[in-house]
């Protein structure tokens, strides 16, 4: 349908790409850190505003991409998160001695990939989007290549991702063999043993990116090793985009709703929630801990995939928002305390001991983030978890309900451990005050923390907005 609408819908994507090209050309001409950052921020902000302006009364589509309520929501989340990461990266990179400008280039490319991914309705665009998202991430994770940890994180993610992509491609091939189609509607036409096997293998590839147990092993190492802004991007847009495309597959392609597959998915969900939380229990490194925590959170989110109803989409939306806001807040605090990056990052819990007495507002923001991730009432996380529980109870999936509750109970332990550390008296490492950054950085983190509370206290507008999106 060659209407002008798809072109307009592609606007945010085009803007992000244009910003990427501008940064690229700028680097070729003259290296200017702040200018590159500004171009990135302006590009992302423009894309965000344009995306907001795009009301989607009817969904527009091209053969490869679809622009509906779901992709609208996901694109907003992707652009918002990328913007936060870009803003915080500037402070972080100021202390970096190597080339700094390419970081923004990679960030913009990853954002563009995520935008493609969330809108794809074709296996080709899915794969393209996924790789465009992942490739820059390898570079970003290994960005501080002088540090062996960073390099190791990048390489590990690269090699394991390659393996995951191989599974994904193989699964796509099997699906193609069965159905002869690559677009989602075409895939829905036929079911059969090959299609089911292909679906399973695709699930391995996508499950790897979402760090679903048993494909989760890379998560803590990569989270810990990568520079904080890169990890932040990985934890936010990468996971969100992959989850959204998986959600779309489950909704549109019947083989993804196959009874056996659904049961398997339920099993994986339970395993992921429990294992993720158990692994985090005595973790003393905050970045690793957040890695484990994200494993557990995507376990909870799988519940929405297993049930796959109309309400499940809304639930997933609510949960994704709450997860994103809390995660960005937590990583935001870590970024600020690690900025500007010179030596070791502030990732050990020791660095956070007595933070409240040095930086009360940052400590409060981190506390709020932890409370939200733990799902305490009056924070965003509670609303998300409440929706997941309501969904599971409504569908009478009692095992899932039990696992969510057990997982949350275990989770409370390690989130509280972080909070306790913040308020202990002895400040172990007073140099880790993260001062000297721009006031804007602190403000961003505080606004995010405030958002966590607002969403928890007054969720109605966000929930209504999500329910009103046409899908």
């Amino acid at each position, binding site marked *: 349908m060659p209407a002008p609408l798809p072109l307009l819908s592609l606007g945010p994507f085009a803007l992000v790409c244009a910003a990427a090209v501008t940064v690229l050309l700028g680097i070729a001409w003259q290296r200017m850190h702040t200018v590159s950052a500004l171009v990135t921020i302006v590009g992302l902000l423009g894309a965000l505003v344009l995306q907001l302006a795009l009301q989607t009364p009817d969904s527009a589509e091209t053969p490869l991409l679809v622009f509906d309520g779901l992709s609208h929501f996901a694109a907003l989340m992707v652009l918002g998160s990328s913007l936060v990461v870009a803003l915080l990266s500037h402070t972080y990179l100021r202390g970096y001695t190597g080339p700094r400008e390419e970081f923004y280039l990679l960030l913009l490319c990853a954002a563009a990939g995520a935008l493609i991914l969330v809108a794809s309705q074709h296996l080709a665009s899915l794969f393209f989007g996924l790789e465009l998202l992942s490739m820059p991430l390898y570079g970003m994770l290994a960005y501080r290549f002088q540090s062996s940890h960073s390099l190791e994180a990048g*390489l*590990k993610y690269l*090699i*394991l991702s390659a*393996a*995951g992509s191989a*599974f994904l491609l193989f699964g796509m091939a099997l699906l193609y063999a069965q159905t002869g189609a690559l677009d989602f509607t075409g895939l829905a036409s036929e079911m059969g*043993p090959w299609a*089911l*096997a292909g*679906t*399973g*293998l695709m*699930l*391995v590839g996508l499950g*790897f990116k979402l760090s679903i147990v*048993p*494909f989760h*092993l*890379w998560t*803590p*190492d990569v989270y810990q090793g990568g520079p904080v802004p890169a990890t932040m991007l990985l934890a936010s847009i990468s996971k969100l985009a992959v989850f959204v495309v998986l959600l779309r597959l489950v909704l549109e392609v019947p083989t993804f709703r196959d*009874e*056996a*597959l659904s*049961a*398997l998915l339920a099993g994986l969900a339970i395993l992921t929630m429990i*294992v993720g939380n*158990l*692994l985090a*229990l*005595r973790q003393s490194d905050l970045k690793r801990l957040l890695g484990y925590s994200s494993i557990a959170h995507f376990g909870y989110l799988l519940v929405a995939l297993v049930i796959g109803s109309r309400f499940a989409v809304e639930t997933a939306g609510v949960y994704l928002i709450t997860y994103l806001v809390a995660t960005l807040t937590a990583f935001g605090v870590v970024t600020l305390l690690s900025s500007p990056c010179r030596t070791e990052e502030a990732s050990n819990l020791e660095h956070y001991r007595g933070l*409240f*007495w040095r930086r*009360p*507002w940052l400590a*409060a923001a981190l506390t709020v983030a932890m409370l939200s991730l733990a799902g305490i009432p009056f924070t965003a996380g509670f*609303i998300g978890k*409440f929706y997941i529980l*309501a969904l599971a109870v409504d569908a009478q999936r009692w095992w899932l309900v039990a696992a969510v509750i057990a997982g949350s109970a*275990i989770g409370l*332990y390690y989130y509280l451990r972080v909070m306790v550390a913040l308020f202990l008296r002895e400040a172990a490492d007073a140099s880790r005050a993260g001062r000297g950054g721009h006031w804007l950085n602190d403000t961003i983190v505080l606004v995010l923390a405030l958002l966590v509370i607002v969403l928890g*206290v*007054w*969720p*109605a507008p966000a*929930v209504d907005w999500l329910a009103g999106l046409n899908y």
Partner: protein
Amino acid sequence: MMEMTVSLLPLTFLLPLAGTLLLAFSAGRLGERGAVWIGTGSVGLAALVTALVGADFALGNAGPQTLTLYTWIAVGEFAPSIGLRLDALSLTMLSVITGVGFLIHWFAGWYMRGEEGITRFYAYMNLFVFSMILLVLGDNLLLLFLGWEGVGLCSYLLIGYYYQNAANGAAAMKAFIVTRIGDVFLAVGLFLLFTQFGTLDIAELVTRATQAWSAGEPLAQLAALLILGGALGKSAQLPLHTWLADAMAGPTPVSALIHAATMVTAGVYLIARMHGIFELAPAVLYLVGMIGAVTLLMAGFAALAQTDIKRVLAYSTMSQIGYMFLALGVGAYSAGVFHLVTHAFFKALLFLAAGAVIVCCRHEQDIRRLGGLRRRLPLAYLSFVVGGAALAALPLVTAGFYSKDEILWQALAAEQQGLLIAGLLGSLLTGLYTLRLIVGIFHGEPKSKAAENAQPGRGPQHSVPLLVLAVLSTLLGAWLRPDLSAVFPAAPGADAHAGHTAVQLIASATAIIGILLGAWLFLTQGPKLARLAAEGAGAFFWRWWHRAFGFDGLYDRVLVRPFLGLVQSLRRDWLDAFCGLAGQLALVLHAGLSRSQNGQLRHYAIATVVGATLMVVILARA
């Protein structure tokens, strides 16, 4: 215009909340002056907003209404909304909380001068005001309960304010635990009401209850009894009264605000607010009156035998709240709330004046070591005289007289002669202990160095709150009587007039006799009294009353020690071990799973392949 002022109502609690947050996150950078300004200013602004709304309300521009701010989450029947109820009752409470609260915050700036952690003090105080306002403005029981727990927490924090002294910590714990026992009853009562009617909205709940239940219905009795349990704990009435005297460990402004003027009267407010339920349970309502009567007598005797200024005032508070319960018990809610208001004025005044004495005498608060301060501390003396006169209900000129007289008259009109006699006897006791307190502090010779060298307080921070409260404790305060006829059913004495004058005369006579008797006894018969209290039967009564009839010892023996013994014996039982197993199991699993995270890329790759194979095999078998 009208819409605008009413829509300002949320500011009354948001301002103190903002104050709390600012103070809490300043991390001590504000300094003493800044902390005082923010702490007092936020409550002052809240009082200003209250005055605006109150003026509109009084002029008839704004009627009783419910302001629904928003619904938190709506799932089925459970849709807790944050709504504010504006009517004469909530506005009265709000005025007391913000008005008296502001004066006390102001005075506290003088009282706490130079104390360590003044930021913490004001953060807690503002948090208290915030919670208390939520309690009285909430249109549903959930919000009310939130405020209810919030004030309990602040009370705990402020009693234990001087935490370096272990005894203060113990007093804070005692207050928290004893009121918590009441809170459990209240919570169960709320659950009961919710299961019965599916709503926690107070107005809706009472309407549904009156339709579904007839008077004397067992469930209604049970619900009322459970709510009463909560009220008893918070308002320090028998048998949950033991915490209040120990709560005096906190700074004196705290005692004035929380343990005299506002929080402890929350129980009175709760019963008044839920009077629809209590009307359905006449037996429980009668019990309310009985408990009030017994408490007011018991506390009156106990107040006679205390040596600490603040403990005298604490027992006196208990006794006065007993009057309020008595009023509620005979169905004279309006009279009860009126006494609540006047009591807030004069008791706050007495506590602040006591605070002034205590600071001026370098934290000496034992009556036996004070004395002769009337020339050195004239303002405190004046405050004590005015406040004491109001407390003892000196006829015609004091606020306390009008409210107490009303209660006694309503008791007669409800034909509860027993309660009337208890009230009159209590009035006699009030005169006695008030005079004992004033004479002990201000007359005679100074009995210690601290009293000899007392320096009067200076500055408006010290004098203005005292003067304002002193004015409010007189006849002028009684003119502020709120018109609560729209909120409550007609009181028993609304139509009758027979005997009103007689009660007034008798009550006046009792109060005057009490005062004169007290003056004669304590001014001229001091040594004789001391001898009387030291030997024989007198000593027995002195000790008995001094320990407030020995409830603490009784509870200690009957409840605390058996409980601790039980805890001790259950410390290492199999059930505990079984529960601990879950934690152990989690740790063992954690240790096992952590081994999989060995950092070896090849292991990770193998795990992925094995997982994928397993998945495909499972799918193939299905």
